[in-house]
């Protein structure tokens, strides 16, 4: 392998000389990067991971085109499709916007102001991410029987996924240079204007990245809308699968969804532009004086309190109520512990696998950003828009037809499927961590004659560790609540919390379903809590945690 130091392409473009504090995207490919280094091992692993992720998309295309235009034409081009498109797009846009606002404002209050109980809120506002969306819907409906329709879907989704914006924005606010806000204020800008022009500007990429994740998650959501009786493309895809005996028709609808997902990603790339945050130097690590809230303090407290009450209180409260009410059931008893064990095991393995698989492509896309790598990395994102059932059937097809059923309905394949489904969440987290770890430290290692793999283990990995942890947590959370793919691929006789919840819930046994929802929340709350705590302990530039050394590499943005 060539020496890293000797390769000029590994130096950052002028203007961002290894700046640990830069926000958002990796350096865009410049003419420089035409000579990006080839790294055969990393490339091989990245390609293998990408093939696994892209397999379901291949299956989707083959199925959709197999059926023939004559069947698809009347199915796709009718008023229902238009209605579903409208439902899906308007819902996605509204939820993305709401999450961007809620996530950003909450992050600002928690990170930059003297809001009482800051650390307490920092953890609490993240936990809703760990509550499955179908449990949230279920909870609301337990309280308000006629809860349903567009605004119900907006409320449920916003409350369930806004942490996807909050987390990266909070991290980037911590990381951003507080001096800019001070300069803006000293030049006479009001607090609101400063917030809008400086703070939001600094966090722009984090907001955008988070909102796109929100959009992709909303596109693929099924369970919540099924319970709320709100029809989107994804519920329709499931319907086509479940009534038409036609995998092809379902796949054709899924294609629309993939196109929408691609549009979202393309939009993000365009909006992201060449900007990479405003910080040029590492600056001086110092404690920023949090903004005193003054008379707005009760309002700020009330706002954050209300958010937590709605996002966390409603689902938890209704689950507790249902458990306490104790309905009877004719359903056979099931093992809560066994299901919890399976959920934990499958999800944890999926988290590890996805994180490990995300590392090579993230390293390549940041440290050796060739155009092909970027395309590969972006196309992996599309999988987030593909419904779980399609992905499960794709793996069914490939294992049954090319491996004679080897691995089919084994824990390993289920874990691989989860890892594939939520791979983009891992890539986003890991890539951001790599982008934020200063290549200079690695170069120092190399210049001191340490072999490349040792530098990786001793320098790179510890630096990006927190990003890996974030990736693990996100994949873990999503896997723990997955249902439709699980039902197809779970080992026969095994149950997860989600499948058992489904079995009870569809049999009117709400009181029996509730404990499973409760345990899902408990299991999922642990990584959320860790995630929240960890963000809370990020070296503070703008926050109030104890001042630390620069340790810039430990910064991460999702």
């Amino acid at each position, binding site marked *: 392998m060539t020496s890293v130091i000797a390769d000029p392409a590994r130096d950052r473009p002028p203007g961002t000389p290894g700046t640990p504090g830069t926000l958002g995207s990796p350096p865009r490919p410049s003419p420089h990067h035409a000579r990006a280094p080839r790294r055969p091992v990393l490339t091989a692993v990245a390609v293998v991971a990408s093939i696994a992720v892209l397999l379901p998309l291949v299956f989707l295309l083959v199925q959709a085109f197999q059926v023939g235009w004559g069947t698809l034409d009347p199915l796709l081009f009718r008023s229902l499709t238009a209605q579903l498109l409208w439902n899906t797009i308007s819902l996605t846009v509204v939820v993305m916007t709401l999450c961007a606002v809620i996530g950003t404002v909450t992050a600002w209050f928690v990170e930059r102001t003297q809001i009482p109980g800051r650390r307490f809120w920092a953890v609490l506002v993240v936990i809703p991410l760990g509550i499955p969306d179908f449990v949230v819907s279920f909870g609301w409906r337990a309280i308000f029987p006629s809860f349903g329709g567009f605004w119900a879907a907006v409320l449920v989704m916003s409350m369930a996924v806004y942490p996807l914006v909050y987390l990266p924005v909070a991290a980037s606010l911590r990381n951003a240079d507080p001096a800019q806000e001070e300069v803006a204020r000293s030049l006479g800008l009001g607090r609101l204007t400063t917030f809008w022009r400086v703070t939001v500007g600094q966090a722009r990429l984090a907001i955008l990245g988070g909102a796109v994740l929100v959009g992709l998650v909303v596109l693929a959501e099924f369970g919540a809308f099924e319970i709320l009786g709100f029809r989107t493309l994804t519920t329709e895809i499931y319907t086509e699968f479940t009534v038409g005996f036609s995998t092809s028709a379902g796949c054709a609808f899924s294609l629309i969804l993939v196109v929408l997902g691609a549009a979202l990603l393309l939009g993000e790339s365009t909006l992201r532009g060449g900007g990479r945050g405003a910080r040029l130097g590492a600056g001086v690590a110092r404690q920023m004086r949090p903004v005193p809230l003054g008379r707005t303090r009760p309002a700020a407290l009330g706002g954050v309190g209300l958010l937590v009450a709605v996002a966390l209180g409603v689902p938890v409260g209704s689950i507790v109520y249902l458990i306490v009410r104790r309905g*009877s059931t004719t359903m056979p008893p099931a093992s809560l512990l066994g299901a919890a064990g399976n959920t934990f095991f499958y999800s944890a393995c999926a988290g590890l696998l996805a994180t490990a698989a995300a590392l090579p492509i993230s390293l390549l896309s940041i440290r050796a950003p060739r155009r092909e790598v970027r395309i590969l990395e972006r196309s992996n994102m599309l999988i987030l828009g593909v419904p779980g059932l399609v992905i499960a059937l794709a793996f069914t097809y490939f294992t049954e037809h090319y491996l004679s059923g080897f691995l089919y309905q084994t*824990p390993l394949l289920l874990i691989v499927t989860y890892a594939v489904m939520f791979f983009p969440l891992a890539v986003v987290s890991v890539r951001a961590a790599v982008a934020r770890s200063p290549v200079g430290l690695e170069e120092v290692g190399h210049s001191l004659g340490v072999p490349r793999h040792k530098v990786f283990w001793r320098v790179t990995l510890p630096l990006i560790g927190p990003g890996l942890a974030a990736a693990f947590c996100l994949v873990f959370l999503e896997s723990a609540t997955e249902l439709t793919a699980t039902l197809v691929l779970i080992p026969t006789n095994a149950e997860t919390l989600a499948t058992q919840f489904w079995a009870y819930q569809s049999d009117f046994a709400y009181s029996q379903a509730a404990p499973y929802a409760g345990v899902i929340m408990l299991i999922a709350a642990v990584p959320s809590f860790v995630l929240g705590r960890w963000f809370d302990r990020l070296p503070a530039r703008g926050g109030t945690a104890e001042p630390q050394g620069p340790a810039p590499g430990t910064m991460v943005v999702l």
Partner: protein
Amino acid sequence: MTPRTRVVRRPIRTGRPILAGALAVMLGSVLLVVGNGGSPAAASSSSITLYSGQHVQTTQTLVAQFEKKTGITVNVRYDDEDVFVDQILTEGKNSPADVFYTENSPPLEELASKGLLSPIEPSTLAHTPAKYNSPDGKWVGISARVSVIVYNTSLIKASQLPTSIMDLAQPKWKGKIALAGAETDFQPIVTSVARKYGDAAALTWLEALKTNATSHIYPDNETIADEVNRGQVALGVVNQYYWYRERAEVGASNMHSKIAYFAPHDVGYVLDVSGAGILKSSTHQAADQKFVAFLNSAQGQKIIAQSQSFEYPIASGVTRTGETPFNQLQPNSISIAQLGTGAEAIKLLQEAQLL
């Protein structure tokens, strides 16, 4: 040494144990996974795999009794029966499924039409009246249910109820009825209407139902039964057992709904048959035949008669108590063959934009 690595020293200390731990966990997981894996492949002739779209309660009791009687282990998977059809078709010749047990006949007819089912032994078929079996002996009828009206007693009086499902298309029912176009149990009714009045009239009727259902379009019959009981909507058409099952789950005191039958032989008064078939690809044909034979034997039928799924046993002379007796039901005469795979109904439902 020390000065040289100073820069990276702290990360090493904190990073390594975590990494080592993560690696160990990952390695352990992989070993565990591989150890756990391969259970379907390990299935011997004394164990079969059942794909069940039927109710968990009944299926579990049937399986437990069968295992006790024969020593053959039955591994059960549960999912929506239509997803199972997609799954079995995707699995192809390596399908782990041996027996497929459904709530309705169309999924079985679909697999039979694709040539994926083995013939059922004639002695087994003989226990169920021929009209409830697959026309060409590819699957056997196990139990039955009928479509009824479920209505909220405080929102509508019994005397105001329609006598035919065709009446629900009238404008006076606007906002009062619930509809689950995606529910498998609804397709036989659509097929029945199309058979009697033709596709064009059936489509007009469906579109009127959709208009009348306004926002009460639900994903399945469970939701219809529940929403009617909660008082969200006055009435809906479901299979009779949904109401009994809901009563068993929530308790009679929490029931605010009742069921009513359509006029005898009404086009909407449809009898649905639940059945079981054996996959041709199964390598345990003898054990599969034994299991299917058990389902419609006197012992299996008695389990169904007492089960909490509230379906009617239809074989071996077993009857159910606690519901309108089976021989007093007066469904219309549409046959299993006429219900077919439901493809016609699905096409109409798609044209009506309900699917």
